[in-house]
């Protein structure tokens, strides 16, 4: 397939791996963070970490939107779903995220009308098909997904669909990266930048990382060769004493992003003063809510939302995994009490979560041999 097959060529992959080998200084340890859950998934699916020298460590970042949703937010969703007459819609993985008293899937089993959708447009369609019911879409995701929610809200207004509303839990990518860079327990050498978030926001928002923190960023695609090449580009910057934002994924990501998407988002959303991230705590200006212009379509205005803060389970170390401080298998409950079938923490829920990626692809290796 065009844009895919060329980037899975094993021979080229080995050549880039050799190039990487020639760029690393023996005795220096390199810690690179892949920000995006999609990259984490690809790295373990294709065994990319096995192609790297032992002193190049990949740290998994907070870029899985399911993994960063706190328990209290799930409880809020269930409270809205339990209102009589409500059809509550959300993406598939979100249904299994544990709240303090079960998941949305448990609430569905107990009688709430909760349905999985593939897009906000699907949720709007359900609203049109059920004019006597209130349909709520539980919107999660980074800037990749937020334009889709924004366009659906505009469409709901244009088509006069009055029984549709959105419970907005969208988040933005830059504030958690700033929080990670300020974190004293994490020393990183560079970032593999998120590919599809950047189709919307462009490369410019990441320029503060080299400018203020002196670390390279390379925006990368999701095929194995994309990720290998991005690692090679970061190491080349480090070897040459450079730090800048580079775009490995030029075939998809324009430097300036998608201006129309940014305009739509600016019209429909505004920043919350702060938003709680699972494991990372409250981060200022990191979450989106509906703007005043769209308040009539805001489920949090239409329904009573408890907004109770629930502490993460004590046994769960998702926060440290999300910050890259520990590897998934170093968590006390990994693979024992916490599995994809019965997750305790959100990192084990989504297929893009670091723990689920480790678990599903059998990546239990504690140490790699030094090459």
């Amino acid at each position, binding site marked *: 397939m065009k844009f895919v097959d060329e980037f899975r060529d094993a021979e080229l992959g080995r050549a880039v791996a050799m190039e990487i080998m020639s760029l690393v200084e023996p005795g220096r340890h390199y810690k690179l963070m892949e920000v995006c*859950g999609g990259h984490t998934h690809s790295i373990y699916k294709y065994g990319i970490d096995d192609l790297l020298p032992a002193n190049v460590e990949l740290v998994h970042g907070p870029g899985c*939107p399911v993994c960063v949703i706190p328990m209290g937010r799930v409880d809020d969703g269930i409270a809205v779903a339990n209102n009589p007459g409500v059809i509550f819609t959300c993406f598939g993985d979100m249904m299994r995220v544990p709240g303090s008293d079960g998941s949305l899937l448990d609430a569905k089993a107990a009688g709430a009308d909760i349905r999985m959708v593939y897009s906000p447009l699907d949720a709007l369609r359900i609203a049109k098909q059920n004019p006597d019911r209130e349909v709520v879409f539980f919107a999660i*995701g980074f800037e*990749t997904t937020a334009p*889709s929610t924004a*366009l659906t809200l505009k469409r709901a207004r244009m088509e006069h669909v009055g029984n549709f509303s959105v419970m907005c839990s969208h988040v933005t990518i830059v504030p958690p990266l700033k929080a990670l860079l300020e974190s004293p327990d994490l020393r990183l050498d560079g970032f593999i930048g998120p590919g599809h978030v950047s*189709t*919307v926001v462009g490369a410019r928002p990441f320029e503060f990382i080299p400018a203020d923190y002196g670390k390279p960023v390379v925006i990368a695609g999701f095929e194995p060769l994309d990720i290998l090449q991005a690692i090679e580009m970061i190491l080349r910057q480090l070897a040459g004493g450079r730090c800048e934002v580079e775009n490995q994924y030029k*075939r998809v990501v324009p430097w300036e992003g998608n201006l129309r998407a940014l305009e739509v988002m600016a019209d429909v959303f505004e920043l919350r003063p702060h938003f709680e991230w699972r494991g990372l705590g409250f981060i200022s200006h990191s979450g989106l809510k509906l703007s005043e212009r769209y308040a009539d379509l805001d489920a949090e205005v239409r329904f009573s939302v408890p907004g109770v803060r629930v502490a993460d389970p004590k046994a769960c170390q998702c926060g440290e995994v999300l910050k890259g401080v520990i590897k998934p298998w170093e968590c006390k409950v990994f693979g024992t009490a916490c599995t994809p079938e019965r997750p305790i923490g959100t990192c084990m829920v989504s*297929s893009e979560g670091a723990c689920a990626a480790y678990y599903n692809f059998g990546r239990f290796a504690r140490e790699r041999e030094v090459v």
Partner: protein
Amino acid sequence: MTGADTCGSHHCVTCGDDGVPMQVVRVDQVRGLALCEHDDGQRETVETALVDPVAPGDLLLVHAGTALIRLDRAA
């Protein structure tokens, strides 16, 4: 049930930072929608407001029912 079951693939395309290349089959210009087809034959109605105008045969990167970018830009 796993993420793979709920999303119909090994990778949850709806919630991650993940886009899928799709080809435009038919366009509804009035409503700003297009019927698009994935490489495996799966079809989906897609919002095209961010990449308009589109025509049958165009290749788009689709995420959560919205085309984010054209993939046939001159490289």
